[in-house]
């Protein structure tokens, strides 16, 4: 994270503003990608216009497992970044 650490205080303020906009966009992207991934994985037949019982529980389980998985990846990822940063000092 060299570029971020090198920011002067007044630049950090502008950077934070950019982060807010990026976070909103990123979570919308994650939402669109998750819908596509769970739809592609769970919905394969088109005899009717609405999801049957097993398709709806499949897409809901797929979404909730993906959220839990992403939280765990977040923890491990942060640990690795911390170890790497410590390693470099």
């Amino acid at each position, binding site marked *: 994270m060299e570029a971020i650490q090198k920011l002067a205080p007044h630049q950090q303020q502008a950077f934070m503003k950019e982060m807010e*906009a990026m976070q*909103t*966009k990123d979570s919308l992207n994650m939402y669109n990608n998750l819908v596509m991934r769970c739809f592609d994985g769970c919905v394969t037949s088109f005899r009717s216009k*609405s999801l049957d019982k097993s398709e*709806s529980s499949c897409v809901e389980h797929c979404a909730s497992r993906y959220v839990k998985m992403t939280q765990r990846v977040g923890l491990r990822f942060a640990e690795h970044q911390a170890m790497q940063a410590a390693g470099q000092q």
Partner: protein
Amino acid sequence: MSWLSGGQQQQGPDPVQAAKVEMEMYTDLFNKIASSCFTKCAARRHRDPDITLGEMTCTDRCVSKYLETQQRVGVILQKANEAQLEQQQNMAQMQQRLG
């Protein structure tokens, strides 16, 4: 996209930018539906330039099932967001009491 405003109450981005991001997301959603439904309904051997009646019906049902999926996944994400927010608030209160 209303599940989003819940967590991040800030002074709010510039309205034209917010409208632009919303349009980008609708375009992305539309492109994803077209891509998924083409793969599921019409991507066999491309023997002729037209889509059959069966492929048209499949497409109509695919669009409606895709949008239903989007709606259900939105509810799951909103609940997960609220659960996470609550967890953060409990942790903050706990730290105050111990602080």
